[in-house]
């Protein structure tokens, strides 16, 4: 077999390898019921999340995001990766809404909380009353402050 043929076969095998490896190594964004952001796990169905919130007596945090939003990636990298942030997030039932999702439920939430661009977080009560809203990107400390404020209001 000529060198060029051997090289071509190696090339094709490499492509298959890259294809297989990379597809399996890609971080999962969502499956049937959850959406994953950094090291956090968010409900994608608002109704079932609200049922969980009622059951556990927790407020709800709605996260409006998109796949193309670079600040959402910054949240994944810098904010959700922090254990202190995750500890605060545990006090909420988390719901992620992809702004590119045009389902009736997502549209209703977008309209109700005025979410027009990513990223936005809205902390709400189980009845849907707004507790706090974070427009755009907030650094770790500011993010935690918002969550604490929402938590205090929820307990009032």
């Amino acid at each position, binding site marked *: 077999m000529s*060198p060029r043929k051997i*090289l071509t076969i190696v090339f094709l095998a490499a*492509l298959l390898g*890259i*294809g297989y*490896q990379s597809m399996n190594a*890609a971080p999962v964004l969502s499956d049937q019921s959850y959406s994953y952001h950094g090291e956090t796990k968010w409900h994608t169905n608002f109704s079932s999340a609200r049922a969980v919130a009622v059951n556990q007596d927790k407020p709800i945090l709605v996260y409006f995001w998109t796949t193309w939003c670079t600040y959402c990636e910054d949240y994944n990298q810098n904010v959700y990766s922090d254990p202190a942030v995750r500890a605060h997030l545990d006090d909420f039932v988390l719901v992620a809404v992809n702004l590119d999702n045009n389902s009736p439920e997502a549209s209703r939430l977008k309209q109700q909380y005025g979410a*027009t*661009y990513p990223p936005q977080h809205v902390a709400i009560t189980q009845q849907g009353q707004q507790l706090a809203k974070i427009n755009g990107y907030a650094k770790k400390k500011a993010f935690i402050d918002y969550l604490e404020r929402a938590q205090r209001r929820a307990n009032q």
Partner: protein
Amino acid sequence: MTPGHILLYLALSVSLATIILLGRDYVKDAEKYSKYIPTLVGLTAGLLTTALIYLTYQFVTTDYSNAYVWNNTTDYLPLLYRITGVYAGNEGSVLLWATLASIVAFWAARMRGVSGQNRKLVQGITMGIVSFFSVMLVIQSPFNTITQEFPQAVPGFVPATGRGLNPLLVDPYMAIHPPVMFVSYALLTVPFAIGSAHFISLHRGQQGLFKKWYGSVLRWLRISWLFLTAAVALGALWSYTVLGWGGIWAWDPVETAIFIPWLFLTATLHAVTNYRPGRNYTVLAPAMTSTVFALAIYTTSIVRSGVFRSVHSFANEGIGLSLLILMAITAFLGVLLPLIYWFGQDGEGVTQDSKWITRSNLLHLAVLGLGTLAFISIWGLTFPLLRDLTTGIEVEVNAKYYNLWSYPIVLLILLLLGFYMDFDVEGHERSRIALGIFTALTIGAAFIKPSSAWQLASVSSTDTAFYRIVGNASVLSVVPPATYVCIAIIKRAFERIPNISRRGQLKEFGITLIHLGVAILVVSLAFTYLFTAQSSVIIQDARNDEAIHHVPESSYSVQAANYSETTKPRNPDPRRIALSSQQVLSKGSSLNGTIKAVHGTITAIKRGPRATVAQLDNSGVWIGLTGENQSSTSLSRGREIVARGAVMWNYVPQADAVVVTDARNVGPVSNPPPAINLTRVEKQSMDLRIYRDGNQIAAGNVGQSRYIKQGGMQVRDVLINRGLTQDTYVIAALNDGTASLTIKRIPLMTPIRIGVLFLLVGMILVLLFDPIHGLTAESHRSRTTVSKNEPTTSD
């Protein structure tokens, strides 16, 4: 039917007629209609160009009777951005693409080229693409009227103002980037036609045409490569000035989509220059030639069919199906036909020598390497869709995927390039030693990390082994192979350039510049991303505070001045959107019950206990003010007013129409009530001076514009101070007097600009001065496209 529709239908008819005539001559192997073909192709191009000019005219004059114009522009935009609106949506982009493709087809038809049956096939395929676009335009026309958009509207209804242009497109780079990109895509039509025709000819048991058309293919590909490179560079500069897109490159699906044809075209050019009739690359070179266009269509389909949403989704109202059909056709002609032929072959039918290190094997490796890079990008766009379709699991493709998979391949290509150039000059023995040394240096450098910032990516223990290995490597590893390339290329240039013809020298210089440009770009890009640093400061009362503020953790200080809040359009004239009394009367009872703004001069006033009414322009149109504030002083005779309210037809016997409203919704034309709401853009800005170590380094305007009627979308005006070693990039968020400033230090932007310049200048030199196939070459000027000599091996 509008003149625009007629032009499109005519263009479609003429292009279809051309195809029929070409088809008839092709099947009968006759030349009966040959002499008419250039005229017909020219006529198609003329009709499409006229349609494009007509659409542009409608945009310039903001003719909102056209729904597409209404959708993509508005009055307050300057002329340049009204023109940009032409290709802001799908229909306009397709018209631009179709026009350019038809001009390219005309250009190709005008050049005598190679005669015979295959010429008709090539022309037929080229015109087939033009016709397909024309069909798309007829189905979804940029000339549809506003009445077609709103069938329930009254006849003759024309909106007073347009919806506006996507704010992200209001940028000088965006005015040029799309046309340059579509020029390159249009130029790819001819190589596609030649490549496909070649395989059709082979399938029919004929000779194929690649050998004869080689020079032509090379020129088309090179021109397209030049434009595509310019388009990528312009797009990158654009994203650099728009906040939040991660600098010049963010692997957004649309960025990736234009990069794929670029990479594949680069690989194709390497394969085509390695083509030797009957000996080398006889299948791969023509196959890749036809595949590039198919890939351009594939990537366009993916990003424009609405499957992908991205920051680039300016237009996604579904030209999906047409594009998917075009994708299937081009994939069949450009990819499947060559593959079928290749499978039917016993191989390339050539005895190859068994030596490993030959020039042609090294070039083959370059083609494979570039092909791998293209594959990584194609796969990145494709596999999330595949995985979602097959498992319902949505996965993320981020910069890490593209960067980490591409990085080792880029290093290998650089080492290979250095070796190839060195091998060309030094011969076997010494070049192998050099390769060994630089490979060892590359591997060694991968372990030198002065700090974590030098690491290619942050990886966690849950990442795959590949990500952990590459992500942990130091960015320093790019320096040895890039140095190797620079040394080898310059050495080769000194060796070869003095001893060849003038044209040959310019071409060699071009090749040297292109490869140097690549080496500079790779190093600078790798470093610029890892070493961008930022710090921030807040000025609480920017309206009144003109003090110099130190930016913590940096050597910068900033000073703000002239904080201002303005709106666009400035001093808008409500008469543009409000109806005159004459217009109200002419529209008649169709307005009954609708809420409208109306303007006119008060000619009579009657005040009653429950309402005040004012007559406009001595006509049958009256303004009726109800409520407590009826005695409003805004109503006096001779005053020109504007009012917004419900138009009631035959409401009272004394008047034709009464516009029922209240005092809040009435005001003088010079100061219209808020309900008229003419403001489109709220802009907050301030002047800023930037100091480094006490010395002023930049001054300019920063701020943001908020587009009220476009979802409140915000676009930032950033201040960029271009420096030799680093750019200082300031982003400001201004909110009610508070200015939050982020100052980024972005290193190595100057080398990136130089690298791009080297690429473009090098490409122009090669395109013009290739001694055999250059645009100025004798062989081309004498209008014979038959290659007189075998292609040179020096590429």
